């Protein structure tokens, strides 16, 4: 399962279509995603940073606060130019720029991570 967290529903659907055939779940805000983590641990999260309410960084902090969620790989999708930021400690495995990313970039991460990850 891949979580897509983006408050722009059209952009989220674009990411979803690039993730096919992997199952996805779209969230428009961080709070709904955090609630859903109680029931489902995704294999990968595509995360927008600027969200309504708590932003993407708040979600990253939440993820690293618990052992079971701290290992979930996260790919940041943003227009903020975060490519040079060091975010590995937050489980960030990649940063994509909304203005330049290709579906193949999204597919690459989906293929690499959506088959499951080491939960131990």
């Amino acid at each position, binding site marked *: 399962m891949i979580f897509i967290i983006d408050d*722009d529903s059209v952009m989220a659907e674009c990411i979803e279509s690039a993730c096919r055939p992997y199952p996805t779940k779209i969230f428009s805000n961080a709070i709904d995603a955090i609630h859903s983590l109680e029931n489902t641990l995704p294999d990968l999260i595509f995360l927008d940073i600027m969200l309504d309410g708590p932003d993407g960084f708040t979600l990253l902090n939440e993820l690293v606060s618990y052992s079971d969620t701290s290992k979930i790989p996260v790919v940041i999708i943003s227009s903020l130019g975060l490519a040079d930021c060091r975010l590995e400690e937050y489980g960030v495995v990649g940063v994509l720029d909304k203005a330049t990313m290709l579906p193949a970039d999204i597919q690459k991460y989906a293929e690499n991570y959506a088959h499951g990850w080491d939960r131990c």
Partner: protein
Amino acid sequence: MESEVNGILVAAHELKAPLALLRQLAFSLELTRNDSERQKIQSQMINVSDRAIRQVNDLTKIARLEDGLFQMEPVAVRAVCDDVTRELTNLFRFNHRNLEVSYTNRSRLVVANRDLLYSVVYNFCLNAMHYSNEESRSELIVKDYYDKVRLSVRDFGPALPTDVWKSLKKGWVEKPTSIAMRPGSSGLGLYIASKFSQYMSAEVGAIRHRDGTSFFVDLKVSKQARLF
């Protein structure tokens, strides 16, 4: 000079979002084989570009306001709101939101410029769409307000923190002021609406609710006899 550069930066940032979205939609179109899905993506592309074109048009209009080229005339306010809601219905639907309309005004004609008033309503509605929660509604309300007609657009989203509210309340008519520092919603639309309202000698304001915000414009009632 500095404020001019800031204005250009805000406009550039605001226009980057629809361009990035169009690019992704074009890729999605390429990947999709299903006819109905392709149609949906095409409609989304048209909606996103319409929105971006309108924003560019509004920005050029701001530059022309000082020339006084926009004539004031009696305008049927409900007809303008009907046209805006017709144009935005699909966009709201694509974003999983609803736009509801409520008219209780007895004074049908206001003193305005039709194009500018259209942009004011459009930008208020678009702002409400951005800040409404998914599956929630926005309300476009037209009512009599003392000797004026109040046109307000209310969103149902997260409550604004007090500090954000304070800076928004005094700032949005002076310069583009972001409500939540979100890309794609730098406050440029609200700023455009305030500039156009100012030109029409209409008063603008905002009301903070527990579950959202209303932006309003108070328009002068036209004294011209109603023809309908």
